[in-house]
């Protein structure tokens, strides 16, 4: 199977979420997948523009999607926010004629873009292309005895009819991933509830309360640590300063640890 993909890192992975980017690239390489960064990609905007009449704010996603199409590749991203926006814009380009027509008139591409590209989250590449069995075999340092909770949040899961990522009420892909690297996944009720997202800029006390509930539930369920794929969830979880706080890491960092890869990509 050809494991060459167009890769959309997104704005935060170049700076504040550098670990998410670096360990994604290094682990992908170690697992035989080639993530080719899209040239001159532009920020997806962070939130999907919900207005049925909005086109301008979707164009950066359309350009990235079209670039992948022109290279004949699937488009991979690991940031939950980018995944959410790119996949929803792609759905518009495939299924909403008004947006498709107007976006194409703006973008003036060689060929009209009609939603041909497949948008994948890195977790889907690991599960469906690399395979969790391969990861199990290549794990040099299994996380034996680590009781880890998956924190999905909202951007990966909802709306499920469009994102088609996992069961929105009982997701399992991160738990399966954790099992593959030898950890003990712990399911807890609030793993698909919102961390407060962008409200942390204006109302940090509010998001702190929401995150507190998530940590309390995770800890009471037996988690020793949480993993996430979202820089905004990561930030809000890290900022929490109350009881029950647990360690939080990115999924790619946990994978790198299991594969024995350091940030230079060397196997230890």
């Amino acid at each position: 199977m050809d494991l060459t993909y167009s890769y959309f890192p997104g704005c935060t992975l170049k700076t504040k979420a550098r670990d998410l980017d670096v360990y994604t690239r290094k682990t992908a390489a170690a697992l035989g997948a080639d993530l080719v960064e899209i040239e001159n990609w532009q920020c997806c905007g962070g939130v999907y523009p919900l207005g049925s009449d909005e086109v301008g704010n979707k164009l950066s996603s359309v350009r990235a999607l079209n670039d992948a199409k022109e290279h004949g590749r699937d488009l991979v991203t690991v940031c939950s926010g980018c995944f959410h926006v790119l996949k929803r814009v792609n759905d518009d380009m495939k299924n909403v004629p008004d947006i498709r027509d107007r976006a194409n008139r703006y973008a003036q591409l060689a060929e009209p873009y009609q939603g041909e590209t497949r948008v994948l989250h890195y977790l889907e590449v690991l599960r469906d292309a690399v395979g969790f069995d391969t990861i199990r075999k290549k794990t040099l340092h299994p996380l034996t005895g680590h009781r880890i909770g998956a924190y999905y949040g909202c951007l990966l899961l909802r709306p499920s009819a469009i994102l088609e990522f996992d069961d929105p009420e009982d997701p399992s892909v991160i738990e399966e991933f954790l099992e593959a690297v030898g950890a003990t996944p712990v399911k807890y009720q609030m793993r698909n509830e919102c961390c407060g997202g962008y409200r942390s800029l204006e109302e940090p006390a509010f998001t702190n309360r929401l995150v507190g509930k998530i940590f309390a539930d995770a800890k009471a369920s037996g988690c020793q640590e949480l993993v996430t794929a979202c820089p905004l969830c990561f930030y809000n979880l890290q900022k929490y300063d109350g009881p029950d706080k647990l360690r939080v890491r990115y999924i790619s960092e946990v994978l790198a640890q299991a594969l024995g890869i350091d940030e230079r990509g060397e196997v230890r």
Partner: protein
Amino acid sequence: MTKEEANIREEVLLISGCDVSRCMKCGKCSASCPAYDEFDIKPHQFASYIARGDMNALMQSKTIWNCLGCFACVERCPRDVRPGRLIDGVRQAAMRRRGGSHLQPEDIPSRIDPDTPQQLLMSVLRRERK
């Protein structure tokens, strides 16, 4: 309902693409909402406010700025009314009016710290400023 409210209602229905007549007031949206306590007008009330054209109250509500856009209500609505899209439609209608931007650029520097992710700033700017 004033003429201006009728215009706003039409705009919100267009932006959101929702059919408020489908709502059966079961309250599942409000029960699912993580920001319920931060709302003055609750998610399950939006459909009926819009149905009767009480748009000024919605436009001035705290709800439209406190909604997290987490889509729990949209996912769980048994009638596909999608309350989150209604709330977002009102937010956009408010923001598209002159002086309607919520957060001002000068409000930002004091709220960021060395770890603030770009994703957070981008999301807020996209949602709250035109």
